[in-house]
């Protein structure tokens, strides 16, 4: 089959058709790239939630008029740090975070090393997403919980998070896809994955077919993640009666 495709591509005037086809049909190259594409961003999403979820909760509960107000200066500091981290372009942030990667993982190149900058970039974004979701909760419901003698922690764990679950899931879908996009970018400076293939091999070495295939695969991955997220969100939301 590879010969037929190569012949077809050559008949269309594609350069280095044989090399591209043999790369794409190699049993390792593409599957491994897909694995790399998913592995670093998914790990980073997980770590970003470990940091961003408590931070997002704090942003809602700690504000003035929240259920457990914190000092204004502290809230101001948290907000500033989040805004600062969010405003640095990801490529710059990655370079800035290299020393941290080296410190934690002993290296600043390779797919695993991209987990650190991805987490640093994603955590403040996740904090804002969580904040947005938790703000959707009706104040009256929180008030009802308080009237029943709920503690602050119980309001967070038994009221806010469960009531906002659908919105949190849709936020997490968003976060995963955004981080996947960042991960593809990270491919340009040492990370692996489909992004790296599209950029280095596809664009850099003029292997356009490889580039298109890598991009199409990325599109498919995003579609799959989005539809899983949407389905999960609808399934958990008890406010939707027609499913």
């Amino acid at each position, binding site marked *: 089959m590879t010969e037929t495709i190569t012949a077809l591509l050559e008949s269309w005037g594609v350069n280095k058709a044989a090399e591209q086809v043999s790369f794409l049909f190699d049993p390792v190259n593409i599957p491994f790239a897909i694995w790399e594409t998913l592995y670093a961003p998914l790990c980073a999403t997980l770590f970003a939630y470990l940091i961003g979820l408590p931070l997002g909760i704090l942003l809602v509960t700690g504000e003035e008029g929240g259920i457990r107000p914190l000092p204004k200066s502290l809230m101001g500091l948290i907000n500033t740090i989040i805004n600062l981290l969010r405003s640095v372009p990801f490529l710059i942030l990655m370079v800035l975070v290299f020393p941290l990667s080296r410190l934690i993982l002993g290296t600043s190149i390779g797919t695993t090393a991209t987990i650190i900058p991805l987490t640093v970039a994603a955590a403040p974004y996740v904090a804002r997403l969580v904040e947005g979701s938790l703000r959707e909760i009706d104040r009256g419901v929180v008030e009802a919980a308080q009237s*029943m*003698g709920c503690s602050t922690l119980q309001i967070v764990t038994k009221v806010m998070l469960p009531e906002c679950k659908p919105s949190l899931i849709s936020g997490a879908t968003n976060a995963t896809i955004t981080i996947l996009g960042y991960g593809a970018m990270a491919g340009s400076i040492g990370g692996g994955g489909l992004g790296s293939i599209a950029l280095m091999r596809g664009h850099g070495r003029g292997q356009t077919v490889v580039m298109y295939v890598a991009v199409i695969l990325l599109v498919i991955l995003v579609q799959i993640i989005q539809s899983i997220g949407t389905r999960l969100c609808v399934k958990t939301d008890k*406010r939707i009666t027609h499913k």
Partner: protein
Amino acid sequence: MEPIIEIKSLSKTFGEGQNQVEALRDVSLGINPGEIFGIIGLSGAGKSTLVRCINLLEKPTQGAVLFHGRDLMGLKEKHLRLERRKISMIFQSFNLLEQRNCLDNICFPMELAGIPRKQAREKAMELLHTVGLPDKAKAYPVQLSGGQKQRIAIARALASDPEVLLCDEATSALDPKTTDSILKLLKTINRERGITIIIITHQMSVIEQICNRVAILDAGAVAEIGAVEDVFRNPQSRAGRRLVSPAMPLPVDESIPMARIAFNGNASSDPIIASLTLDLGVKVSIMGADTRNVDGKAFGTMLISLPEAEEKKTEILRYLNAFDGVTAEEV
């Protein structure tokens, strides 16, 4: 009788400086155990703030709230949370947990109290029967009507075996028929469980229907307080008169004699004014009226002009007072 809840010269101020708003001014009230106490006022009178001060959802600026003679404001956060379980609350917007089904909503306060799940579920089922919705255990709030949601909210409020039930405009979002059935349910709960009920409302029909005593709140202060019949028959304060006959300003021309007719819901659908003119041969004008028909019963008040002659006035008033559920007096 020792009051179950006593509010002592309570004040609440929102904001600071120029934006300062005095929501409550020196409010003092005593609520007796087992009674249904109404707090009525126009919107902005401070009713909701007052009810939130009772369980300290709002912290009063000044004054004290005593529950069984104990000052709630002196309690530590943890102890306050325990006391709050004895003072349940229901709301205008129901405030059910939308991601939990009805049974789990009712279980919620028991979950907080650490009651074993199985035991909590059994009790929740009993409560579903109490509020007349045994088949809705697995239903989610979105699938219920407003009246059904309020019934679930009532069941949830009862789950912690409270001594007091605070109702914050609990029927304001419901149609008259549903309001009626919710009020009946509250009355049953009060009678059978001996739970003291405090009702905040702007609807005087609610007060008339189930309250024993009522306080009228006007601009953050108590304008008057007394037994419902007394306050409704003969309101002493301006705010009281305004609420009892909201459609009419006080007669500007004091020289015209007038009678105020109150329909308390027991009146039949007899055409009372028409009968009056036919039977007594007098002509009266309706100066103002605010009456509603709920399930074929008349509620509200009407203001009619009276003739000058004293004996005619007496005759008319006696005639009107002879109807069931109608009280008439000269104003």
